[in-house]
């Protein structure tokens, strides 16, 4: 083989590989960023953060009217049950508000959302570090071919073969119904004496997110999630204080659904509704979503709730 032929073959095959891999990935478009994703059903595969970050760029604005901003506490809330406003669950397992805001900000340029559901939980403002990956626009380039994309394909293949996808096209993550011990991070947060620790950077991000939503004229539905009555009883003052702090930024058109109110006492007392006292079982999450739907319908019936028309 001549030197010219060797160089041409090596460089040619390399370029062919690069262009071929990028071309196939752009065609498959697992995150809906390379072509119009309207009408597609894209589930989360691979790294949840990367997937939701990219899905929120085009897929969510093209197919949904509202978004849930939250942590693992709301990750298994199947928002397909809310039919009055098509809602995507962008909650991240173990996610804090800085990560959530980065994901949410992706939806802003499209100006398509009609409302935001913000889950009020001290976990969101307890830290500001990116847990697994620092979400930046370079993820768009990585979506043309990278190790995280390879993981996403493996995940998708596994789902297709075993038909047990962990996350659906509405962003819901199945957590199951079996009880489990509370994870160390939540245990540490709830076990800390006094007020819940608040990371100043995370708190600023939370306020910035609320201000951003308000500046675009969108209403926020603040949802204070349920937790087992025994846990709530032991920290009721701290939970109430935390909620008051976050709700201090509430605007006139915003709504609050408070699952820690006396209306939901029976629900909270039923330990079977919780996996670990904080996270709901999938079955209980359906009940919570059904209640959210009911509250939205009630508001609409009372003429209180008017989501702006989609432009």
């Amino acid at each position, binding site marked *: *083989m001549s030197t010219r032929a060797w*160089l041409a073959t*090596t460089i040619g*095959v*390399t370029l062919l590989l690069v262009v071929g891999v990028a071309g196939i990935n752009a065609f498959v478009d697992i995150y809906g960023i390379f072509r119009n994703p309207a009408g597609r059903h894209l589930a989360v595969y691979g790294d949840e953060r990367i997937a939701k970050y990219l899905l929120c760029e085009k897929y969510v604005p093209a197919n949904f009217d509202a978004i849930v901003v939250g942590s693992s506490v709301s990750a298994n809330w199947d928002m397909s049950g809310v039919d009055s406003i098509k809602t995507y669950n962008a909650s991240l397992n173990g996610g804090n508000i800085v990560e959530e805001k980065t994901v949410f900000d992706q939806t802003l340029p499209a100006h398509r959302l009609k409302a935001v559901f913000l889950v009020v939980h001290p976990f969101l403002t307890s830290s500001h570090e990116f847990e697994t990956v620092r979400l930046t626009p370079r993820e768009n380039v990585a979506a043309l071919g990278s190790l995280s994309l390879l993981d996403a394909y493996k995940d998708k293949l596994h789902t297709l073969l075993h038909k047990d996808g962990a996350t659906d096209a509405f962003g819901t993550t199945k957590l199951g119904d079996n009880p489990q011990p509370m994870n160390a991070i939540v245990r540490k947060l709830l076990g800390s004496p006094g007020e819940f620790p608040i990371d100043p950077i995370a708190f600023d991000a939370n306020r910035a997110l609320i201000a951003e939503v308000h500046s675009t004229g969108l209403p926020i539905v603040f949802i204070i999630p349920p937790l087992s009555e025994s846990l709530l009883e032991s920290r009721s003052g701290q939970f109430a204080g935390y909620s008051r702090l976050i709700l201090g930024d509430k605007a006139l058109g915003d709504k609050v659904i408070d699952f820690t109110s006396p209306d939901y006492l029976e629900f909270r007392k039923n330990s079977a509704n919780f996996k670990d006292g904080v996270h709901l079982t999938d079955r209980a999450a359906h009940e919570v979503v059904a209640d959210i739907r009911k509250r939205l319908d009630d508001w609409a019936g009372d003429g209180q709730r008017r989501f702006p028309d989609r432009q």
Partner: protein
Amino acid sequence: MMFNSFRFLFVFLPVVTVGYAAFQRYAGPRVAQAFLLLSSLVFYAVAKPVYVFLLIGSILFNWAVAVGIGIEDVDAMPLQLAKRKRMLQLGLVGNILFLGSFKYFNFFLLHLPAYHGIRFTLPDWSFPLGISFFTLTQIMYLVDTYQGLNAPNSLFDHATLVSMFPYVTSGPLVRSRAIVPQLTKRTDTNDRLEVACRGLLIFALGLAKKVIIADSFARIADAGFGSTGSLSMLEGWVFSLSYTFQIYFDFSGYSDMAVGAAWMLGIDIPINFNAPYRSKSISEFWQRWHISLSNFITNYMFTPILRAMGKATLKTSVFAVLVAMAIAGLWHGPAWTFILFGTLHGIALACNQVWKKKRLKMPDWIGWLLTFVFVNAAFIFFRSPNVPAALHLLRATLPHAALFGTSALKGVVPLTPLLIVRPITFGIVLAFFFKTSYDVARSFARNYLSAFGTALLLGACILYMNSTAAKEFVYFAF
């Protein structure tokens, strides 16, 4: 600009390689050299444009000093000798001051006693990329010129020699007489293409070492050296070994890429690594690790110190190696950890000299084990932010109550197979048992297997490069 960036890989390297070859062929070596010089200055300026003026200033100073050192009038030898020596001294002091003002001045000021509670410090300048390397290259050039090993270069040749992009940022350290003649030589196209093929192969191997293997080790090492909690013995070893492998694959990967990029231009530069972790003694290690720096230490530090002491005995030799290695440690940066790293190696080399002198023997495998364990321990000082942190990790590697705990390891490192476990396993096998990159390039045969293999390796590297933000080379910090 980093070798492991898309800008370098897809724009700079192809444009410069093709452009240099085209100018060589159609416009002659001098025009090609001008193109190479300009490209190298652009390469250097990309990181921080202002530093290119420091590089140019350093080049101008050393060129002028070398002209002063060069012998012009043979009849006036005695007079010339004194003048030449003064010029050399001026050059050495100038270079040391230049390096010192950016790297060491504040370090020394910090260790001076405070005057009425006031400490004098200079603004904390970040030092120019590659300053340690291009300064040492020019010190070698001045000494070689003084010793008559090479004639003073023209400014054009000297600027090209010092600023050439394959090695300006992190070496290898090159000698003028090995590089400058190659710039003016017109090479046969077929010969150049043959070398370019090998260059592309060794470049791909170096890139894989960096982006696939070194960066995987770095994830564990960074987490381990950043951890302040108590560590088990297992974790102590995993974290320290991770850095030992990281720095090897990072720096040898860089050196392979430097050699590969230079070969693609048809220029031969020295290799810097030769499977150092297979060494059976510490002196063998330094003959295989950062070879160009080892040669510098031997020829320009150890030998002059030994000569200055008059007589070469075991005692003077031990003293010279201790001083030379401590200075070499300090060369890496203004920190006690680097000085300790160098001094520890100096002590080990001194012990090795005594051992050899007494003609003592030990089985090869014990020699290898001792050397590797020592090198690993010394790198703990090299990587740690300060001496207490180094001692903390060093203590963890010794037997203590917690032998096999993995809580720190689990907490900081998600051990994903593709990103970490496989590259690390592959890296360990490569470091101890596989052919070196240089051997692979030397035994390279042009066929479809090697062409597809190289292409696949480059493809895998690009996949890894696109997966995370490019990580700087370890030696960019020096």
